[in-house]
């Protein structure tokens, strides 16, 4: 089941510890998954294990994007599963290195 991804919305993995926050996403519905299973509301309860083929893991603080970077998620808690949208795994966004200014 696809779901709308509004900026600021939060999801957690049904099959690992991963939690994400939507930074931006194109309008419309998206099939957001982690470890192969649909991601669920932060308050919902999941069950099961990540698909072995989709267990690349997520890291807290990393931003995950689709190919054209129109969709971006911030990982707020790391886990074992791989994030994917519409069956395509998301990539880690390379951070723009800025010197600390405050």
């Amino acid at each position, binding site marked *: 089941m696809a779901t709308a991804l509004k*900026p*600021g*919305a*939060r999801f957690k993995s049904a099959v690992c510890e991963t939690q994400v*926050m939507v*930074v931006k996403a194109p309008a419309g519905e998206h099939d957001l998954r982690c470890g192969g299973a649909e991601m669920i509301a932060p308050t919902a309860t999941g069950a099961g294990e990540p698909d072995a083929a989709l267990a690349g893991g997520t890291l*807290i*603080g*990393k*931003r995950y994007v689709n190919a054209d970077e129109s969709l971006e998620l*911030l990982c*707020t*808690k790391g886990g074992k599963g791989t994030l994917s949208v519409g069956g395509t795994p998301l990539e880690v966004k390379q*951070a*723009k*290195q*800025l*010197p*600390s*200014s*405050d």
Partner: protein
Amino acid sequence: MNISTILDMAAEAFGERVAVVCGEQRYTYAELRERALRAAAHIKASGAAHVALLDTASPAAPVAIYASAYAAVPYVPLNYRLTAPELNELAERIAPAMLITTPDYAKLLTPRADLTLIMRDEFLKLADAGGEPPQPSEDPRDIAVQLFTSGTTGKPKAAILRHENLMSYIVGTVEFAAADENDAIVVTVPPYHIAGISAVLSSTYACRRMVLLPNFEPRAWLAAMRSENVSNAFLVPTMLSRIVDHLVDRGEAPNLPALRALAYGGGKMPLATITKAMQLFPGVDFTNAYGLTETSSTIAVLGPDDHRAAAASRDPAVQRRLASVGKPAAVEIQIRDDDGKVLGAEEAGLVFVRGPQVSGEYLSLGSQLDADGWFPTKDRGYLDADGYLFLDGRADDVIVRGGENISPGEIEDVLLSHAAVADVACVAMPDEQWGEAVAAAIVLHPGAGVSEQELQELVKGRLRSSRVPQRIVFKDALPYNETGKVLRRVIRQEFA
């Protein structure tokens, strides 16, 4: 989207790391989160519409920022230098509110039923109310912070920063957990300044220890830097200038082996100060940050490599970048003329900025963004061919003499080049013939002397006759606000 996520992530990843140091007080990220959650439950139960802080820097500031976010109530730090009538007027505007303060500041406030005072020490020791921790609102449009501007032209305006603005700024400019285990930053800007808020958010997201210094003084700053082995610091130009003078006067070396990075901003940095500072701190990375309250802090950055390149270069175009504020950070910047036409490189005009961190919004006045999302900063400036931004004062400070726009900055730079001149501010004075004319308030170095005429000749020779100050007054000191901005309106009154 809620800025409390920043603290949740830091506590999750580095809960045992020290987050805040202030005198003898030390809190880890896990403890900071625990205190913020307890305070949030207290705020929610109180029914407050705002959480205000009237206090110098202390751990209550970071606790209050995050507690307000968890409780989904705007955080409103107040300027503790305001007078009692000014503070009471602001209290009226934010009531019903909870206000965190100290006994001394509390005396300034007229008691009112819809203003609940809580003393700082009590606020930091709130007991766990039990029950589930508050679930922060996820609406990105919720107001996270409300800052009253200084109100130079009337009633203070309430600038608002939404969760989406501040989160965009942090996620767009700071790498999560970028700090090393032993890194620390000394925070000297007051809690009611945007730089005081961004320091807390950036440091938390970088998982960097914050050392809060309530009252800036060069000796105290150096002592705190040494005792906490501080790696990073942010200073406003006047603070850096006082540190440089302190060291030079005593012939002392800084003796700060842990220091790696010094960032500065909040006002114009005199070229002489930054040049001297780079000599005094040779291995240190200098960063100039330019930002505004309405833009959630930094929008342009002149980084360490830019500083070194400018200092080492013989190319005047590269050398002068030391006087720039660098390149746009996570925003776009445009220069426009008075008619709104976008200008090219080297053409001076008004600075406009666009990006998700830009709120450009005041309560009651609404959004100041144009149809395409651009915010008029009201700063004047230009971009060079490589995109470095040079600022040239506030649009309001321009002197219009006989229809000609004169920037006070260029005249000030010439006057400052005179060996006798320590400080200067040029302002408009009323003139029957020209509408406005140039006036200058000048501070001389101790024991130095120079005639009005000699200074006028200097300006005439370097610029042109329209730039020559028609009147010059010599002062013991110029009026500054606490972040090092010269108060031109006060000087203007003198020539009115």
